């Protein structure tokens, strides 16, 4: 008998990547998303198309949809037989999404880019079967126009690797790791060798006005900053963590190739969204710069990325108020209250001293490209 999997969040990862890991002969796929247009389309057609990049070519896949709901339509009592539930809703929405499945005692797997979302979800759902996962993949939330013309839900994804904290009883194309292995060998490199330079590429891409990450990387000065940031983190990771150096070097090369890949159509707006979250104290930008500084490395290129995040302006972004706060607050109070830095610590001093100069440099880069 087929088992059911719930995918809460039918965006890039939830729609474009996770279902590819499971056999439709073994599992029924049920989707929940707050976007009614996605849900209606899934219901109307009973399936959608997604494209996986393999060996520099697109591979077309049809994903059958057993059922699809908006959160308002979702009835918990109808899904007590599900084998597992995957969340890919964004770290800020985990708590709300967890409340929706409170009482459902099935494995909950979070691929949310922030390990602390696991504890947050546990406290809401009231059980311990909550697991962290690291999808080592870039999945766009869109596709080239020719694919969208065929199916507006089409998405392009890489042929990635999914790592899940061991525990859930599931069969699919992924690897189970212990929590220590997952955090040490997968999460740390992903955070600093993928997330850090990836979002820097996106912020610089936004500044120069391109749509996709690969377009940003095709600009030599942007590429140089992203590679520079990668090297700063690579050096830091080699010094700080006991992760084999050849693995880290392979990982860094793999990531740069991904960012430059012309088949992925990875939107700048998707990768750059929610800059406040990406500027979190222990995260991919501020946290990365802090690690470098603690090891005696001046993170000049990561500083350019931080500045790019501060300059990011998208009227539709939930963090659009960041630009307002930057305008109304002095540099030192912004560093203290918004970035969470201690007055006089190295990163605070560096930012106060250099940010105007970096802004000028990035703005001239933007003009040059224009």
């Amino acid at each position: 008998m087929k088992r059911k999997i719930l995918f809460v969040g039918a965006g890039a990862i939830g729609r474009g990547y996770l279902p590819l890991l499971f056999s439709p002969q073994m599992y029924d796929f049920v989707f929940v998303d707050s976007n009614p247009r996605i849900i209606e389309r899934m219901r109307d057609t009973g399936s959608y198309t997604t494209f996986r990049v393999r060996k520099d070519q697109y591979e077309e896949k049809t994903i059958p949809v057993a059922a699809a709901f908006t959160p308002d339509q979702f009835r918990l009592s109808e899904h007590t037989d599900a084998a597992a539930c995957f969340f890919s809703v964004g770290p800020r929405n985990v708590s709300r999404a967890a409340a929706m499945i409170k009482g459902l005692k099935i494995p909950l797997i979070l691929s949310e880019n922030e390990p602390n979302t696991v504890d947050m979800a546990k406290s809401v759902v009231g059980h311990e079967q909550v697991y962290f996962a690291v999808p080592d993949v870039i999945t766009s939330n869109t596709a080239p126009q020719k694919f969208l013309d065929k199916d507006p839900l089409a998405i392009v994804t890489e042929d990635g690797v999914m790592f899940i904290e061991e525990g859930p009883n599931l069969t699919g194309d992924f690897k189970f790791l212990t929590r220590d292995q997952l955090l040490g060998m997968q999460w740390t490199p992903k955070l600093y060798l993928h997330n850090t330079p990836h979002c820097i590429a996106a912020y610089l891409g936004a500044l120069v006005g391109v749509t996709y990450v690969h377009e940003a990387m095709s600009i030599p000065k942007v590429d140089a900053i992203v590679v520079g940031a990668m090297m700063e983190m690579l050096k830091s990771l080699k010094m700080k963590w006991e992760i084999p150096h050849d693995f880290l070097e392979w990982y860094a090369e793999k990531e740069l190739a991904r960012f430059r890949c012309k088949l992925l159509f990875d939107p700048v707006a998707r990768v750059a969204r929610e800059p406040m979250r990406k500027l979190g104290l222990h995260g991919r930008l501020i946290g990365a710069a802090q690690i470098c500084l603690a090891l005696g490395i001046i993170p000049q290129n990561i500083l350019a990325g931080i500045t790019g995040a501060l300059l990011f302006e998208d009227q539709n972004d939930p963090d659009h108020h960041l630009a307002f706060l930057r305008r109304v607050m002095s540099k030192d109070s912004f560093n203290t209250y918004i970035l969470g830095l201690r007055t006089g610590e190295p990163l605070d001093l560096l930012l106060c001293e250099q940010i105007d100069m970096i802004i000028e440099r990035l703005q001239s880069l933007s003009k040059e490209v224009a």
Partner: protein
Amino acid sequence: MNIQWQDETRLALRAAIEGGRIAMKSDAPLDVQVKESARDVVTSIDMEIEQSAIAILVESGYPVIGEETFSGKQFALDDRQLCWVVDAIDGTANFVNGLEYFAVSIGLCQGLNFLVGTVCLPRLQQIYCTLGADRALLNGRPLCHEHRTPSESLVAGSFSGSVGNPKQRAKQYTLFGQINDQTRGCLRLGSASTNICFTAAGRLQAAYGMNAKLWDVAGALAIAIAAGCDVQVTPSDAPFSVNYIVGSRSVVAMIRELCVAQGLMEESCQTR
């Protein structure tokens, strides 16, 4: 994104942050003066912050009322008049004693409509503010109060203890005890705006206060409303003062019921 009250929020942020900076720079021994009771104290830092805030906020053209310079005659609550309400340091006793629960609080009100709020807790490195009617931020990150039940709730109260009014005093302590018994506990942190901001952020599930001066709570109430808290406010007998309950729906309802039963609040208080 269209930010309502953009100019006012800008001024309120400047005033609160500057107030926080003044509070943090004061490493000299404080000049503490007792006002109406041993618990009611003021320092030269309060005065300095208030002057600084007034100097910034007058740019808006609205009148500014500050705790330390309020004479009682200069202004009455008026539904048609916008006015700034400033508490230079809410929780001066904590400030004097080196505790971190004190705040610089700036609110823009129109009668009992709380429109703009900024509260700075400098020692905790926290700044709360509103961005229009339905957005509240803590250190730039959006706040959304998660409503919980009384048994899941931690509450904080603010009340004077009414030294000169034994009946009122007994009622307030009874209420405090009842809330303490029916929840995970009732705290008295010594700063009403801190209580309310912690509630907006979901660290506490409710905050309440009796006869709170408007400057203690105006900024924080605007933040709580924008964060989605249930907020009940009613003018109290004392001038320029309110009774308030804010927080999770069912916890606010429970406290309100207890207040009404104690005769501390009328049934017809405003809900926002």
